[in-house]
């Protein structure tokens, strides 16, 4: 069944999490059924498998069709790109720029988010044979080796992914990630200080003195693209106001030097919104993801002021089960030493995909 496995991998590349697993199971079921039918007709196992796969058509065709259906968690309607973008794209760019400046800020269009200097991003992309093109709301990023046509930058949910600050134009990092993700390229974040965003063979080196930029990038690997964390309870991920995580908490344990870890925990904040079906929905909990790079044997996370009394769970399911009682709309959740706040520690791979995180066993962790 090597052929089938390869086929399934290729046909579902670019999809993540449950969508990918479900489609693989569905196609595998189709192939298995067909193989049985062919075998009853007297074909050999190998011939039956080949014939079943041949009927399915090329994996590329299945995949390109599927990527058009499954995008990422519903994030609202796309807005129009600012005219400022068009102006910037027409500007000649210096070739010598080596890195892309990243900032973390908030504005009325996106709320708190990280941003990258657009001019520098364009220069960095040009060096690897890619480009940001077009002069209208459908500006797209092209990168070498992409399997499918790029998506416009404004496909991401917020009203505008463009920010002008101190006469510099920035693009929202998550809008860039979203567009890159849709090219089918393998996307990965590496490093912590001045992190590097890899897309296929291309790399975008980010320069920043704000830890929240890297925090935002790594949080995206578990939040935006890996819906299992999110879908179990339908609790939204918190948008973190700049410098709002003013406390810190230290953990000791089997943490590996230089590895990236995340602390995932709920906070109480009333929210309203629309779900994937467009229905009104609301709640009193958000999930906060805060990310940090470990020293050997310890890691320190930025947390909300007053964050204490938490209990670590060994799996996503256990964490979600512990949160369930807090979803009762008739009473606000309250955490103290007797009722500790549920939390997870994740080890992050930096890869956008099913292997974005593994839950760290609480038995290996000592809370300072």
């Amino acid at each position: 069944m090597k052929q089938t496995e390869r086929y399934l991998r290729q046909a579902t590349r670019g999809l993540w999490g449950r969508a990918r697993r479900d489609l693989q199971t569905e196609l595998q079921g189709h192939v298995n059924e067909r193989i049985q039918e062919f075998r009853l007709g007297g074909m050999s196992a190998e011939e039956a498998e080949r014939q079943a796969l041949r009927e399915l058509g090329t994996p590329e065709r299945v995949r390109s069709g599927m990527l058009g259906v499954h995008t990422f968690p519903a994030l609202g309607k796309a807005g129009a790109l600012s005219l400022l973008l068009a102006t910037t794209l027409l500007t000649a760019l210096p070739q010598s720029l080596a890195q892309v400046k990243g900032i973390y800020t908030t504005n009325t269009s996106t709320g708190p988010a990280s941003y990258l200097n657009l001019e520098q991003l364009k220069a960095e992309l040009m060096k690897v044979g890619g480009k940001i093109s077009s002069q209208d709301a459908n500006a797209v990023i092209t990168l070498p080796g992409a399997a499918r046509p790029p998506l416009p930058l404004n496909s991401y949910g917020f009203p505008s992914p463009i920010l002008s600050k101190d006469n510099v134009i920035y693009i929202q990092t998550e809008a860039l990630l979203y567009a890159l993700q849709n090219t089918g390229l393998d996307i990965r974040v590496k490093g912590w200080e001045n992190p590097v965003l890899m897309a296929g063979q291309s790399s975008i080196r980010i320069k920043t003195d704000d830890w929240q930029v890297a925090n935002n990038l790594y949080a995206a690997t578990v939040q935006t693209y890996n819906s299992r964390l999110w879908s179990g309870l339908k609790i939204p991920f918190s948008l973190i106001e700049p410098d709002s995580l003013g406390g810190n908490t230290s953990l000791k344990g089997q943490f590996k030097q230089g590895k990236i870890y995340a602390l995932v925990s709920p906070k109480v904040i009333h929210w309203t919104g629309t779900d994937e079906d467009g229905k009104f929905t609301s709640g009193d909990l958000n999930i906060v993801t805060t990310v940090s790079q470990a020293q050997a044997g310890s890691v320190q996370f930025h947390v909300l002021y007053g964050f204490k009394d938490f209990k670590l769970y060994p799996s996503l399911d256990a964490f979600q089960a512990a949160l369930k009682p807090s979803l009762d709309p008739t009473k606000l959740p309250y955490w103290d030493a007797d009722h500790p706040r549920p939390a997870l520690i994740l080890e992050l791979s930096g890869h956008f995909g099913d292997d974005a995180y593994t839950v760290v066993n609480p038995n290996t962790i000592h809370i300072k």
Partner: protein
Amino acid sequence: MPSSPPDSPDANLLRGHLDLILLSIIQGEPKYGLEISKQAQSRTDGYFDLRVGSLYPALHRLEKAGFVRSEFQTAPRSGSPVKVYTLTESGGKELEVRRREFETFSQQLGKLWQLGGIQ
């Protein structure tokens, strides 16, 4: 003389009416992908030969639109899990609307042929 299957429709024509075809087949008993593609063929004497590569994306699109829902069940022969699709209430309405649209379109087009002398 045995009846030979009619020539397959033009690819664009098929693509344009894929949703209508799929909703029409799924109507009634819940079915999984392989059954759907087989019925498309068998019930039309081979006229609708749906490429499986476009069948599954189309099914997922219909599900996302809320016209069908799906669940995994065990397949009869292989015992593997297969995803079974059922028409939802809104899918039933959609089918009705599209069917009427198609009939009207086809009738109106017929009038043009009559006027033009094509019978």
